């Protein structure tokens, strides 16, 4: 789960990381009032779960309150990569002497929370990694010991020359690790971490993604979820415990298992179609889940055909068949459905479907080819 910049900053402040003050506005009036309170020039920053806010015009410098109002009125309601901006963060504009990058993420290779720091801040770290890998220092945090003080210092020492900067940055790094762990994060970054002309070190941007698996025991973090920051269909899928990602194609996909779901999308493409979504109904086979899945898929107006690809293991084919039949009773489905079922209770499922007037395939290639053909018709 992604959280907004302002929410990540709240986590940072709680961990003792120096962050300039900031307040959230949902209207231009509010933005103006906040800017007036702060007094000097401010930044007006769109709060959306998307990179590239700056390039999209979602981050603006405002010399005074009137300018803040103007920028806010333009940014609020703006569409950034399909997401509507509902909130802006208004925060005093800082004098910047230098910009660095500090990030932590759970790294597959080291099997640990791993820091990346670079004196080349303000840029995409992936780009730095690609063009100038020596500009990045990495450290895997041994989960048995946590981040040790000398390690924080070692990272900070890579960013700055000045002892006072190094000391402050080491403290930021240690606290960022605490915040990462306390938040149940999978990724967090400060980009940029700035120095000001008077020698202070501050985090002026903040990003954090939470490990969804941590939410059950962190109600305060879970409460940060902003449903307006994702398509309604994804909210609905999440609430039904479905893994769903909306895409732009016309073939709706309903599959059990993430790998098989991806392979199914790929096969749609292979046969000349475009998948409308990724959707994994998961291992268990509650018919209600199938109903929810069909509701979500059919609410996408681009969908021209729907394909089921179920390999029964834990998932029982008859449950899926019952779900399909149930869904077609409850909701109006105007597009053709093609079904492939194999594995556990396959015969039972075919019987149920046949009774309800559906026919079913047993080969994955055949069903995908058919679904593409129907969508492209």
């Amino acid at each position, binding site marked *: 789960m992604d959280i907004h910049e302002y929410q990540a900053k709240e986590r940072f402040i709680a961990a003792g990381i120096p962050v300039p003050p900031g307040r959230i506005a949902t209207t231009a009036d509010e933005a103006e009032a906040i800017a007036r309170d702060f007094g000097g020039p401010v930044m007006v920053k769109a709060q959306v779960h998307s990179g590239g806010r700056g390039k999209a015009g979602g981050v603006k410098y405002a010399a005074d309150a009137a300018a803040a109002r103007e920028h806010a009125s333009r940014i609020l309601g703006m569409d950034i990569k399909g997401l509507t901006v509902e909130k802006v963060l208004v925060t005093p504009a800082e004098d910047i002497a230098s910009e660095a990058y500090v990030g932590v993420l759970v790294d597959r290779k080291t099997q640990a929370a791993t820091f990346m720091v670079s004196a080349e801040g303000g840029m995409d770290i992936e780009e730095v990694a690609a063009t100038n890998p020596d500009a990045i220092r990495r450290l895997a945090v041994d989960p048995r010991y946590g981040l040790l003080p000398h390690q924080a210092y070692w990272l900070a020492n890579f960013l700055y020359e000045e002892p006072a900067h190094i000391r402050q940055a080491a403290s930021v790094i240690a606290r960022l690790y605490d915040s990462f762990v306390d938040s149940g994060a999978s990724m967090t970054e400060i980009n940029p971490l700035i120095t000001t002309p008077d020698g202070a070190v501050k985090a002026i941007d903040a990003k954090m993604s939470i490990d969804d698996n941590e939410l059950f025991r962190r109600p305060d973090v879970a409460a940060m979820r902003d449903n307006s920051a994702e398509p309604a269909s994804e909210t609905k899928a999440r609430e039904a415990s479905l893994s769903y*990602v909306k895409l732009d194609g016309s073939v709706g996909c309903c599959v059990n298992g993430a790998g098989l779901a991806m*392979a199914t999308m790929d096969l749609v493409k292979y046969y000349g179609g475009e998948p409308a979504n990724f959707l994994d109904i998961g291992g268990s086979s509650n018919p209600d889940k199938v109903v929810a899945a069909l509701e979500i898929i059919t609410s996408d107006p681009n969908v021209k055909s729907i394909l089921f690809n179920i390999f029964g293991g834990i998932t029982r084919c008859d449950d899926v068949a019952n779900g399909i039949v149930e869904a077609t009773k409850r909701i109006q489905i105007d597009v053709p459905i093609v079904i492939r079922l194999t594995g556990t209770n396959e015969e039972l499922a075919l019987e149920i479907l046949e009774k309800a007037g559906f026919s079913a395939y047993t080969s994955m290639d055949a069903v995908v080819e058919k679904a593409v053909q129907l969508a492209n018709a």
Partner: protein
Amino acid sequence: MSIFIDSDTRLVVQGITGRDGSFHTRQMMEYGTQVVAGVTPGKGGQTFEGPGGRTAPIFNSMDEAVAETGANTSVIYVPPAFAADAVLEAADSGVTFVVAITEGVPVLDMARAHAFARDKGVRVLGPNCPGLISPGKSKVGILPAQIVTEGPIGVVSRSGTLTYEAVFQLTNVGLGQTTCVGIGGDPLIGTNFIDCLKAFQADPDTTAVVMIGEIGGTDEQEAAAFVKEHMTKPVVGFIAGQTAPPGRRMGHAGAIISGSAGTAEEKMKAFADNGIAVAKRPADIVGLIQDAIA
């Protein structure tokens, strides 16, 4: 032969009285796996009643289960909030192989549990994996037994149902398997492709290997380099997620493209560059394997 499990596997089921645990224990017993014990704290002293009159004693702790039954392997079906603790307990109990089926385990919990298991010299498979099956010998986890058959092919995969698909197609043309291993879709897993490839290379009965990867991370690239450097047996590869958009998590916590290295394209290129035959779709795997062992 086979890898990781065989007919000497003596299994203890952690969470044996739960919904999933009891269901799959029955399935494993049915297949012939030696389920020698179950663990559910507070239910020690009870007996698990399996199919065909098979039973297993239930213990309060892994410690007791291993001491009493000589179990050497455990499988974990406990809920996500307790799964990492179950791995720690298993790694501390004397078993040498721990299969963690549970999905949804907090990743930082697993970082710690994996470190502990490494300290103890215990192999962990998973979490968030379907387990493994050595056809005709033993099944540990949730892989459906009816789709496998004995034979010379090793299968290793990050995915569950996609593995079934591939194994099913192999079985349909009579290509049986030594062992089918699902290594799991989480970012931090205890046993990776290379561990399995190494084991398959060392297993005299395995003549060729199917490796099924997906987007995210660079495990497949490292596995490809390993294949080129250390494997004499042919390997056929498939990667799921060619159409996945970057930055979005595709079901598995590990299946997210961040940076160009994690794309299906890069992984397929790494396969091809290192002598791994690349299947464009699951249906191509069988043909490539047949070519390889012809």
